[in-house]
């Protein structure tokens, strides 16, 4: 009943026939439809970090036995909007000793890939913006481009400490990409496709009528893969306990010290948008995407997807206020000497399982 997919495609069909009826060539109508979809995604990517920032402040406050933002709007809902407006009006400072073009381009290079990353995510039945056949690889590749932005930010600050922060941040990002990608390989081995929508679809159904066929419920490989992916994603998004690059109490603010106003807002937006993308990927790959009992059509698939994604986002937020920060050499040690061997062992076990089950 509330399934948005068929409704939206119907709306686009009507729009396209109306536009073609007024003399626009079919290609133009198609481009218009795509432009509207792009606009919707850009809107989503801009709004979701606002919700996440508010959620983080409230969740962290409740975990610390305080209330969090309560002043601006009912229960502080408009707090992020106020913060955004404040950041837009702040003075834009470019340090003298820095490279101007690099300083200006760095936030853009960090933020631009996030918008693209939202495209292959399966938001629900019929709600995949683009069903890419290389969805998983595409998201990983485009996230790698943000790392260049981190390096540019460190260099463009004209400040040795920021540069060191940028280099450490980039080293951390590059290191944790490896277990992250390797932990997803068992999922690809089982489902034979890199399309996130295809993987989510393949996890429908139940074993013994009760246990959902999600990858996380596969005997050993599901849990190990999910845990490694989760930990590596927390490290990839520079969240505590892996937030040495931007640790507030350690390096002032690491590689984004010298960025004020809108540029800082862009870095912030990128971080929270990546948290959402990583959670959405974890849901699509391991938790069945939009699977869930639909109660006769009352609970639509996109609600399941959003619910599961926000559950994983809650995990991300929870980790921040539970674990102490890892020192940077132990952070690298953890990646290369623990996560990587286990992800490779996991691939071996998954190969065995594929052999036995098929």
């Amino acid at each position, binding site marked *: 009943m509330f399934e948005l997919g068929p409704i939206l495609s119907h709306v686009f069909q009507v729009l396209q026939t109306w536009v073609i009826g007024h003399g626009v060539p079919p290609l133009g109508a198609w481009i218009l439809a795509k432009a509207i979809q792009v606009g919707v995604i850009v809107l989503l990517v801009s709004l979701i970090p606002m919700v996440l920032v508010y959620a983080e402040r409230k969740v962290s406050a409740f975990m610390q036995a305080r209330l969090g933002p309560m002043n601006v709007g009912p229960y502080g809902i408009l707090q992020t909007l106020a913060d955004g407006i404040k950041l837009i009006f702040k003075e834009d400072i470019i340090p003298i*000793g820095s*490279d101007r*073009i*690099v300083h200006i*381009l760095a936030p853009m290079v960090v933020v631009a890939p996030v918008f693209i990353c939202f495209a292959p995510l399966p938001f629900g039945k019929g709600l995949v913006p683009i069903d*890419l*056949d*290389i969805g998983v*690889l*595409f998201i*990983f*590749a*485009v*996230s*790698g*481009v943000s*790392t*260049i932005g981190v*390096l*540019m930010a*460190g*260099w463009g600050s*004209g400040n040795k400490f920021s*540069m060191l922060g*940028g*280099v450490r941040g*980039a*080293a951390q990002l*590059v290191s944790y*990409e490896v277990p992250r990608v390797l932990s997803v390989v068992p999922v690809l081995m089982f489902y034979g496709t*890199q399309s996130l929508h295809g993987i989510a679809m393949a996890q429908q159904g139940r074993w013994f009528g009760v246990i959902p066929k999600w990858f996380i419920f596969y005997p050993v490989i599901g849990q190990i893969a999910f845990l490694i992916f989760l930990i590596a994603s927390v490290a990839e998004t520079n969240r505590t306990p892996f937030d040495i690059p931007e640790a507030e109490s350690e390096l002032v603010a690491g590689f984004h010290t010298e960025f004020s106003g809108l540029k800082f807002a862009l870095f912030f937006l990128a971080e929270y948008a990546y948290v959402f993308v990583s959670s959405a990927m974890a849901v699509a790959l391991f938790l069945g995407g939009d699977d869930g009992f639909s109660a006769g059509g009352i609970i639509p698939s996109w609600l399941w997807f959003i619910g599961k994604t926000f559950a994983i986002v809650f995990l991300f937020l929870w980790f921040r206020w539970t674990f102490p920060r890892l020192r940077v050499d132990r952070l690298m040690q953890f990646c290369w000497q623990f996560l990587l061997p286990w992800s490779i062992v996991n691939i071996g076990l998954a190969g065995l399982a594929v052999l036995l089950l098929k």
Partner: protein
Amino acid sequence: MAALLIGLSLVVVTSRSVFRSAIALTAALGVVAGLFALLGADFVAAGQLLIYVGGIMIIMLFAIMFSHRPAVGLDRQTNDQWLWGALFALAVACGLIVQFRAVYRGVFSTTVSMPTTISIGRLLLGDMVVPFEAISLVLLAALVGAVYFGMDYEERL
């Protein structure tokens, strides 16, 4: 897009700051990935981004950031024979364009783009398994060498 690529390559070669050349090179590799995507090679495009931009350029940027060059160098990037060099490059370019048009005349890709991951996988483990294994051995040697050179001097012996 090809014009963008040529422009970026010119920036790579003529920029006076090493860091800016590296950033332009990164952007050029990104544009190459886009060209791959336009030609229907989706896996190669994503692989190009992941490996070249997300790996090799980052290492190159690390090396540049840690070497002690002043941020904006004032060295002249060309020597006195730049005009002859430019003419020679132009001549080579014209020759290449003429040759390509002669060989590929009228052969534009009219095939429907299909996802390439499955065929690449089949090739790698089917016809091309020997080069695949050879490349993995080369990578293993490179990894071992990198770890060895990264150890302290006393540890190595």
